[in-house]
């Protein structure tokens, strides 16, 4: 019953070879998409990773200038430039502003460690990867947050900052912070 389907291939070996080549390429495409679905660009080389069990362990980036330290989840090399990657594998879009602040801090640290300004950083969510531009505005936001944290550490009252109530539902401190939540 299957012979009529296979007949053209049997009659023309070159047709059979072309079909086989297409099949091989299709398998490659499938595996390529499977590897790319982790969110990290395939063409980028992974320079460092902040997880156990894999080569290229991450070293913390330290900035004496900003009194800031951090270790991105991944650092990838794209055309000779190191790009920090922050992974939030349980989170789906849209982009959360606090994740952008964290990535912004890594962008500052990467720039100071490598003496090259990364043009962007990658924020990997479960459903997609966002390319966050390393803009002056982002740098200002990060430095502002840093100044506020340092002031709060020095004893400045935090009650002056409004409580973002919409975020309480996902906060790990909700039961302590607001009893009876």
């Amino acid at each position, binding site marked *: 019953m299957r012979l009529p389907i296979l007949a053209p291939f049997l009659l023309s070996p070159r047709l059979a070879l072309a079909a086989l080549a297409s099949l091989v390429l299709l398998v490659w495409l499938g595996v390529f998409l499977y590897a790319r679905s982790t969110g990290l660009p395939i063409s980028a080389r992974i320079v460092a990773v902040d997880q156990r069990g894999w080569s290229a362990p991450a070293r913390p980036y330290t900035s004496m200038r900003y009194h800031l330290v951090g270790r991105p989840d991944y650092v990838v090399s794209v055309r000779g430039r190191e790009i920090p990657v922050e992974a939030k594998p349980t989170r789906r879009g849209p982009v959360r502003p606090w994740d952008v*602040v964290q990535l912004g801090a890594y962008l500052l640290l990467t720039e100071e460690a490598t003496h090259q300004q990364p043009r962007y950083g990658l924020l990997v969510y479960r459903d997609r990867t966002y390319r966050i531009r390393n803009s002056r505005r982002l740098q200002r936001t990060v430095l502002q947050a840093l100044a506020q944290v340092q002031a709060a550490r020095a004893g400045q009252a935090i009650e002056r900052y409004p409580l973002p109530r919409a975020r309480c539902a996902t906060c790990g401190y909700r039961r302590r912070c607001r009893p009876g939540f």
Partner: protein
Amino acid sequence: MADSTSERDEHSTASELAAWAFCPRAWAWRYRDGVAADDEQLARGRQAHQRHADEVFQRRRLLRWVQLGVLVLLAGLALAWFLVGR
């Protein structure tokens, strides 16, 4: 993901800034008062990060082997194509 505690003695950490941007009170609980957040939530986060790293490296390794196999197969098919034509 998380920046270690010893590093934040003198410096602020990137994850600390994220906590601040999320909510200054959550930051105070965790970084000023040293109160641990919901352990289950933390453990889930850590596991998810480890799983993600495992997937990234395993899938990249698989892709490398498949690419090698595809190259060998295509070379074989090209040779067969040439031989069939003779």
